């Protein structure tokens, strides 16, 4: 079942990496933040708090993080090559309904955030509850921020 709708975006995903969210094994803006250790530590703690939500399965975060990275043309981390291909093709019906609600929002956050509809947010609330909705939307926004910082600080662009 497909709910909502996507506006097609020409994206290019890069597969094959298993780098962590924080990029501690290289190549992301988090390394650059080492010049400001307190900022680095607090940014990492914030991201960790977002993804520690009990209301949202870790897999949902991984899928959304990967899709937002694809939209930005950056390295996809934490999912299989098959899942990455499915995400790239925007075949929502390959995912669970709750995952679909999250991926619809993930699709819009980077460049279409004003087109996120009330009913799409309601679907997220039904799937994950109010606290889960806050956790997820915050996560999506900062997955996007992380990609933008990567592009700005490391030059990783599509």
């Amino acid at each position, binding site marked *: 079942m497909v709910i909502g709708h996507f506006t097609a975006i020409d994206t290019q995903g890069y597969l094959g990496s298993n780098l962590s969210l924080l990029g501690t094994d290289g190549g992301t803006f988090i390394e650059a933040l080492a010049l400001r250790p*307190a900022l680095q530590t*607090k940014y990492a703690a*914030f991201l960790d708090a977002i993804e520690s939500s009990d209301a949202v399965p870790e897999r949902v975060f991984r899928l959304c993080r990967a899709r937002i990275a694809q939209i930005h043309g950056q390295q996809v981390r934490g999912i299989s090559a098959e899942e990455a291909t499915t995400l790239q093709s925007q075949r929502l019906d390959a995912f669970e309904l709750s995952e679909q609600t999250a991926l619809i929002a993930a699709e819009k956050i980077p460049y279409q955030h004003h*087109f996120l509809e*009330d009913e799409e*947010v309601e679907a997220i609330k039904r799937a994950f509850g*109010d606290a889960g909705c806050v956790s997820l939307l915050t996560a999506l926004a900062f997955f996007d921020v992380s990609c933008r910082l990567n592009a700005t600080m490391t030059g990783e662009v599509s």
Partner: protein
Amino acid sequence: MSTTPRIGSAIPGAPAEFGTVMSHTPDIIAKFGDLYAEFWQQGLISQEVKEMTRIRNARITDCGY
């Protein structure tokens, strides 16, 4: 773009705004506060320049803040 709050306040009697909505996730808002304070209060860039860029960013992204 919605013009009404999509998520209610987590604080009874308080209107839905950034802080009260984020309070649905106390650990996240606490860590966000730590990060935001570090960003605003520390570093080599003046608060005036940070605020100027914040306003510019808000205008570009059509944000009401």
